[in-house]
């Protein structure tokens, strides 16, 4: 008993110690640089690792309190239940405000420790500054946790039973989605820290881009996976098969992703050609700023309404202060120091660099579109009091058209040469891909029964991206132009980053096909069924056999039994259900999903259940799994690129580091 009673205090104490270490990490290395004292600078090598261990202890302590169902800890009492399955007791640690902020800080500390551990090849001054900037962020958020969102707070007398976790969160999705998302979100802090450190040093070069790129890429890979996972979670858990809602909470994670994607691409230009330096620095600052903004939007309650924010402002104002300090500070530093940075690398509009500028132009505009769509209603209400809504139709009308030129131009990018390129030659080489796209569009048009032209063309766009990527690959390995053995040797010797590009871009194509397929060609039936009756959807017959009650660990459910069949094929069973979670007295809908090829049959129950009759929503979603498989392939592409030899081995010592005087001009 003594163990469980003191473990929360141990966690709390570790968190306070971590704050002290973060303060050391924020200041001592910089003082060391100022006083030219190597011993002080060297603090940046070990402090982040110790800080990470301490935050890890705090996190483990909270987890232990959850596992032991120690309801004397307020956070555990509010979000857990003794009958909850063990997996959800653990994942419930971050299924609430305090715990998720602790996870945020843990991941931030992890990244700081990683830079300290693997940053041995960085110039010591740069590393010290990067670690210090990380320390500032860590200090701010640890203060936030300790002062406004302490997860270790006790209640007396301890209640006998907890209030359970929100049932929607009692899902494997909670185990995967938030950690992935946070690694992505928070990982961009490294790019931010590098940008601020470069501005402090007044020096930036191609080597800088080479150091920043793997961190950004890793964060981006996780964020891509996290967003896709969240989308699939919403799709199967919420019960009507939507996969993206343009909800402010989604936008909060989507904006850093868009900006991060732009950053990845501009960093390539900077690394390879030494151009777009100032812009890349700005993007690095903006990307993490959007992560901070997302944290503010979700954590402050401002989304529910401006008034909710005003009634309990302590947390919101704190994060807003962090937001203003970091974004404002970094941008001010940028405005002050950016003119000192030397621009380099000239290029013509039609060139690889030009294509990447095009990419950045559209991605950044798209980011701004999502940003204004998310913030405008808040701003308007705060200023004039007028309440408007900005929902999916707005984003479909603005964001959608921005993606079309970007995706149409995408296959050209990798085929263009650096500095100055031959657009006509690239077009010729892409001829096969164009034909493939057109054929796909025509086939779709015919199969869909000649209705609508835009949807087949949009689907063709997806094929264009995949085929375009294959053309890029074929060009690189001289497929069919060189002997097979030569091509194979070239394929094996292909830089992983080039292969990653091919894979990632093909993944985007698959995503486009999935989005178009399910958005345009889905068929849906909503009916009431008695046992023995059936409904037909997209050639499948769903026979309703009856309802049966089932008791789970902390819920009861009514499970409907369906037998699905098509023609003479083997029938299969589908069992959608309605669950009722006792502790919170809340109901959830559990859809039944059958994957057929890339498509899915999706059956869920409605509210109207009377006697033996149920309301059923059955839909057939063509190619829907390609949305998430495509995202997965895109992440894999990013991960492949991350294993590139030059990123693994690290950057060579830059010329600038060897002659600091010349470079610090």
């Amino acid at each position: 008993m003594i163990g469980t009673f003191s473990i929360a205090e141990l966690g709390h104490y570790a968190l306070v110690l971590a704050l002290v270490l973060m303060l050391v990490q924020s200041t001592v290395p910089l003082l060391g640089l100022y006083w030219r004292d190597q011993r002080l600078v060297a603090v940046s090598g070990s402090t982040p690792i110790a800080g990470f261990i301490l935050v890890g202890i705090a996190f483990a302590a909270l987890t232990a309190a959850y596992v032991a169902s120690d309801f004397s800890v307020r956070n555990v009492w509010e979000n857990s239940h003794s009958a909850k399955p063990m997996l959800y007791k653990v994942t419930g640690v971050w299924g609430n405000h305090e715990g998720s902020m602790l996870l945020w800080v843990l991941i931030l500390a992890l990244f700081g420790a990683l830079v300290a551990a693997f940053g041995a090849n960085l110039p010591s001054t740069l590393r010290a500054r990067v670690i210090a900037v990380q320390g500032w962020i860590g200090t701010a958020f640890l203060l936030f946790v300790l002062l406004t969102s302490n997860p270790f707070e006790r209640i007396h007398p301890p209640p006998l039973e907890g209030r359970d976790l929100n049932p929607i969160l009692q899902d494997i999705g909670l185990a995967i989605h938030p950690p992935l998302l946070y690694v992505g979100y928070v990982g961009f802090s490294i790019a931010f820290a590098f940008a601020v450190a470069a501005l402090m040093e007044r020096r930036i070069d191609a080597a800088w881009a080479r150091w920043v790129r793997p961190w950004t890429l890793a964060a981006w890979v996780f964020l891509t996976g996290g967003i896709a996972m969240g989308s699939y979670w919403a799709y199967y858990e919420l019960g009507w098969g939507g996969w993206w809602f343009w909800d402010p909470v989604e936008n909060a994670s989507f904006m850093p992703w868009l900006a991060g994607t732009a950053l990845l691409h501009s960093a390539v230009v900077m690394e390879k050609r030494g151009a777009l330096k100032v812009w890349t620095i700005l993007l690095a600052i903006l990307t993490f700023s959007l992560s901070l903004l997302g944290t503010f939007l979700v954590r402050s309650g401002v989304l529910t309404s401006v008034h909710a924010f005003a009634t309990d402002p302590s947390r919101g104002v704190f994060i807003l202060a962090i937001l203003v300090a970091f974004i404002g500070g970094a941008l001010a530093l940028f405005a002050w120091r950016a003119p000192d940075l030397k621009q380099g690398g000239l290029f013509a509009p039609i060139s690889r660099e030009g294509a990447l500028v095009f990419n950045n132009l559209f991605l950044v505009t798209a980011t701004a579109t999502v940003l204004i769509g998310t913030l405008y209603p808040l701003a308007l209400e705060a200023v004039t009091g007028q309440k408007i809504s900005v929902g999916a139709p707005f984003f479909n009308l603005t964001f959608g058209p921005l993606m079309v030129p970007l995706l149409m131009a995408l296959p050209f990018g990798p085929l263009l040469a650096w500095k100055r390129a031959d657009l006509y030659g690239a077009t010729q080489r892409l001829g096969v891909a164009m034909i493939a796209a057109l054929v796909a569009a025509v086939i779709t048009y015919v199969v869909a029964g000649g209705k609508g032209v835009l949807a087949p063309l949009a689907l063709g766009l997806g094929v264009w991206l995949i085929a375009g990527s294959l053309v890029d690959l074929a060009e690189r390995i001289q497929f069919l132009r060189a002997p097979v053995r030569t091509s194979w040797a070239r394929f094996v010797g292909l830089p992983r980053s080039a292969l990653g590009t091919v894979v990632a871009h093909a993944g985007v194509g698959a995503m486009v096909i999935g989005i178009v397929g399910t958005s345009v060609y889905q068929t849906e039936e909503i009916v009431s069924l008695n046992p023995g009756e059936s409904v037909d959807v997209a050639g499948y017959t769903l026979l309703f056999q009856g309802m049966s009650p089932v008791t789970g660990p902390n819920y009861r459910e009514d499970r409907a039994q369906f037998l699905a069949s098509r023609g003479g094929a083997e029938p299969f069973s589908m069992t959608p259900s309605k669950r009722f979670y006792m502790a919170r007295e809340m109901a959830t809908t559990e859809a039944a999903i059958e994957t057929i090829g890339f498509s899915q049959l999706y059956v869920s129950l409605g509210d109207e259940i009377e006697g033996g009759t149920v309301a059923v929503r059955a839909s057939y979603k063509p190619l829907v799994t390609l949305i998430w498989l495509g995202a997965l392939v895109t992440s894999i592409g990013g991960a492949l690129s991350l294993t590139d030899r030059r990123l693994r081995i690290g950057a060579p010592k830059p010329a600038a580091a060897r002659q600091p005087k010349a470079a610090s001009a």
Partner: protein
Amino acid sequence: MMACWRLVLVLLSVALAAPAQAVQPSEMLDDPALEERARDISTGLRCLVCQNQSIDDSNAPLARDLRILVRERLKAGDSNDEVLTYLVDRYGDFVLLRPRFAAYTLVLWLTPAVLLVIGGVVAMRRFRSRPVAAQALSREEEEKLSRILGE
């Protein structure tokens, strides 16, 4: 509380919405064409008590009332626009998920296009102000080049 889950925002995560589903069989119109129009209109209308959720998606009782109202107006012979006007008159612009193009939404609607144009102009001007090797060689340079190549 149960009715509208989006108020209970959890995590920095994808939207978590209604645990049950929206359109119920008993609400639906017999005329498939009219029903399709009703669904179409519904996806653009906000469930007023929810967070950014359309009445087509929401299981809140209010959303259900609005879905039925939309269908009643359609049965009475209203055009899609008339249905929207009817709802805006009663509930204000807040009900529209696609804000109207008006003075107070000018910034909202125009930002994407304006940014794209400004960004494009800035990028193009940089290309123009710093001409690359694209410039033709001068006569002297050409002579020099041919001399070198000739050697």
